[in-house]
């Protein structure tokens, strides 16, 4: 355990120093450098930065576990979070780059300008949405960083959050978008290597193929059966839904919901401000197109491996946990060890060292793998015996594997666990079975966030690789957090302070406000990490729903039609936002039934988006077209930069020399 801590400290220290060094080399003095990295970032580098920006703690830590427990329906995240890039590359990125300002509210405000001041209203709506979406996201990143710090460094979560925030604060204020971009390039390589190494190892172990994508459609090495076929069989036997079967009414993932959630995530991805703003940082329209390609290619490296990892982990988890004995008595263990020539692995045993979290003071042998015991100490996975001493991991009432952290911390959780221990010890005479309670709390099965972090241990990899995965998870969390903080800063300092409040502000004061805004945003994000609001996972549905129902239609119509003016677009945005927002709030907090055809709150952005399109297009015949000046601007946005190779249109004076 101590060697793992040392390795983790080493890797986290090394990567953090690298990030700070890059930021120092890339420090900036102009608002253009601060917000759009001087627009001198090469396409491939911008692609990597976009990929790191996009792949958050949720993609790195959470997604594999999510797919692993959802099976087929996990495709909504896979398709949603990559398919959005096709929309982005074809419908938004090149035009927004040609438009050439700093932020998404800039585009909305300038495109939907009008005599009535609707441009101001549109800009303000966009600013509020951008800030809301970004904070929702940042909160999730901080939780991810907290999990990593507490598992691998045994430090208090709060200390971990503060360290992470301090690092992000330094490199974001120093280098702005330029510092963030080049840091994200480094973070991409850290996170992708850290993700792929254990996936490849586990693929080799299980299927004998190094490429996880081939392993997924291949056979289990030990038995020669097809991996997915065998997984389907085991899942069914244990009362889970078969892994590859599309749609199940029971889990709520019917065809309509899979469709709506996938589409909402795709349109939402394309409308997320921290992703869009990345395309403002490249040299020209051509580079924006290439950049979208590189970004998706680099993202696909993780997203094509994650579903394979999910299936491997699922198989591995059931295979090594179900029907195993938690404690093997010493006499039997000695015999089995002797037969296996003293090798615990060959004997199928793990020596569990005594630990404060274990009831037994002495070391004991167990048939369960080491990762199970290690993670049991975090309280994110636990075994609630029914008295037979064997672990049952099933999809029905026999299940004994739970995630007790789903119960409220303190007396309620501790009481339930103690009562259960008494219940087992007395053979059901006293105490109470905690399993029904945990089932009702939705705590069946392990916490999904531990799957990726436990993967290297499952594959039996060395401590230093486990530590490297921890550094990768931190890279994923920090890279996304920094990109979001910059969006918050530019929304406040550029759109609110400069474009709305003080149009005469000097470059210097704008830069100062931008840096101060990052500072404030970092503190708020840090507070989110220290006092994680319980609503985080629910409001992420908000971020995509709002982006899909507000930004996406407004920007697409703004580019592809000249006829849509502010008077048509603004009501569309308001209807889309209001419908989506009310539906999500009503379902999450108001106890509503999903009355709109049974669509989950996560998927309602699709309906909001259609409403937005419908309202806007219906109002077009009755409202004024945008002014002549805006129409010329649309023409300009649709064309590439001509003759820019020799012309002064692109200044590359502060293009990074890297």
């Amino acid at each position, binding site marked *: 355990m101590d060697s793992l801590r040392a390795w983790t400290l080493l890797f986290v220290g090394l990567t953090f120093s690298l990030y700070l060094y890059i930021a120092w080399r890339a420090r900036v003095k102009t608002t253009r450098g601060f917000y759009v990295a001087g627009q001198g970032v090469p396409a491939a580098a911008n692609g990597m930065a976009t990929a790191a920006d996009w792949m958050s703690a949720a993609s790195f830590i959470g997604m594999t576990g999510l797919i692993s427990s959802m099976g087929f329906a996990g495709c909504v995240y896979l398709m949603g979070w*990559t*398919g959005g890039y096709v929309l982005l590359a074809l419908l938004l990125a090149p035009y927004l780059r040609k438009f050439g300002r700093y932020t998404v509210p800039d585009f909305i405000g300038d495109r939907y300008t009008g005599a009535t001041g609707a441009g101001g209203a549109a800009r303000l709506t966009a600013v509020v949405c951008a800030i809301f979406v970004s904070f929702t996201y940042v909160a999730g990143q901080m939780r991810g960083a907290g999990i990593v710090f507490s598992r691998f460094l045994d430090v208090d979560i709060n200390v971990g959050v503060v360290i992470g925030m301090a690092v992000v604060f330094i490199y974001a204020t120093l280098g702005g978008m330029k510092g963030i971009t080049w840091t994200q390039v480094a973070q991409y390589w850290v996170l992708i290597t850290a993700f792929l190494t254990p996936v490849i190892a586990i693929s080799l172990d299980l299927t004998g193929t190094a490429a996880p994508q*081939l392993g997924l459609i291949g056979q289990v090495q030990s038995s020669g059966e097809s991996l997915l076929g065998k997984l389907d069989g085991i899942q069914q036997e244990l009362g889970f839904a078969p892994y590859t079967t*599309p749609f199940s009414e029971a889990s709520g993932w019917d065809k309509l919901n899979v469709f709506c959630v996938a589409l909402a995530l795709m349109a939402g991805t394309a409308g997320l401000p921290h992703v869009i703003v990345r395309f403002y940082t490249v040299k020209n329209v051509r580079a924006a197109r290439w950049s979208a390609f590189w970004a998706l290619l680099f993202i*696909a490296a993780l997203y094509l491996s994650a579903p394979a990892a999910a299936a491997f982990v699922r198989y591995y988890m059931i295979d090594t946990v179900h029907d195993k004995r938690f404690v093997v008595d010493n006499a039997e263990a000695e015999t089995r060890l002797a037969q296996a020539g003293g090798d615990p692995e060959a004997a199928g045993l793990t020596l569990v060292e005594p630990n404060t979290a274990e009831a037994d003071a002495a070391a004991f042998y167990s048939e369960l793998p080491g990762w199970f015991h290690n993670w049991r100490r975090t309280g994110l996975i636990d075994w609630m015996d029914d008295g037979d001493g064997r672990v049952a991991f099933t999809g029905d009432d026999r299940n004994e594997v739970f995630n007790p952290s789903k119960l409220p911390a303190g007396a309620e959780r501790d009481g339930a666990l103690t009562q259960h221990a008494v219940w087992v010890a007395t053979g059901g005479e006293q105490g109470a079975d905690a399993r029904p309670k945990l089932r009702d709390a939705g705590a069946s099965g392990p916490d999904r966030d531990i799957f990726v972090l436990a993967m290297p241990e499952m594959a039996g990899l060395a401590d230093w690789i486990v530590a490297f995965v921890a550094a990768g998870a931190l890279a994923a969390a920090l890279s996304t957090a920094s990109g979001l903080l910059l969006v918050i800063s530019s929304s406040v300092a550029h759109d609110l302070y400069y474009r709305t409040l003080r149009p005469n502000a000097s470059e210097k004061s704008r830069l100062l406000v931008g840096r101060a805004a990052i500072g404030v945003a970092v503190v708020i994000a840090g507070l989110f990490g220290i006092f994680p609001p319980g609503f985080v996972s629910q409001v992420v549905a908000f971020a995509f729903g709002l982006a899909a129902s507000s930004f996406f239609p407004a920007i697409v119509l703004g580019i592809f039609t000249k006829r849509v003016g502010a008077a048509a677009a603004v009501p569309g945005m308001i209807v889309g936002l209001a419908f989506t927002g009310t539906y999500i709030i009503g379902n999450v907090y108001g106890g509503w039934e999903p009355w709109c055809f049974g669509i989950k709150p996560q998927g309602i952005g699709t309906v909001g988006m259609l409403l937005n399109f419908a309202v806007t297009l219906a109002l077009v015949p009755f409202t004024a077209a945008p002014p002549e000046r805006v129409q010329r601007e649309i023409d300009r946005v649709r*064309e*590439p930069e001509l*003759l820019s190779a020799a*012309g002064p*249109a692109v200044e590359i004076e502060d293009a990074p020399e890297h």
Partner: protein
Amino acid sequence: MSEPRPDPAATSTSTPPALDPPPPPAPDPLHHHPRMIEARRRYWRTNLTAVGVLLSIWAAVSLGAGVLFADTLSAYSVGGAPLGFWMAQQGSIATFVVLVLVYALVMNSADRRLQRAVQDAHAELDPKSEPGAPASAATPASEAR
């Protein structure tokens, strides 16, 4: 907030953040040259066609094969995986990468065609300049769209 204030998007000198220089209102012969008008029309049509075709494929592989017809497609298989499942979790993502690559190639070549049209139109307007190297002379005009 209701007091009148300068239109934020006005292309006057009071809006500095425009990164391209604000277009001066001077008439631009190059911009209105018939060749240019035709070339721009063709460029935009190419773009709309490319977007239309590629987005149809996008919808067909993801929302079509991956969702709407996933249960039907599961009768077939790719290696050990049912086809519907494989499309939803692997095939669609791989297709997305190709779609974005094709779009970049198609549009970047359309950019070059439009660029050549500018040079031809410029050569017609100003025969003294060589068609191969019109950049320095044409730039101010093309910037003044």
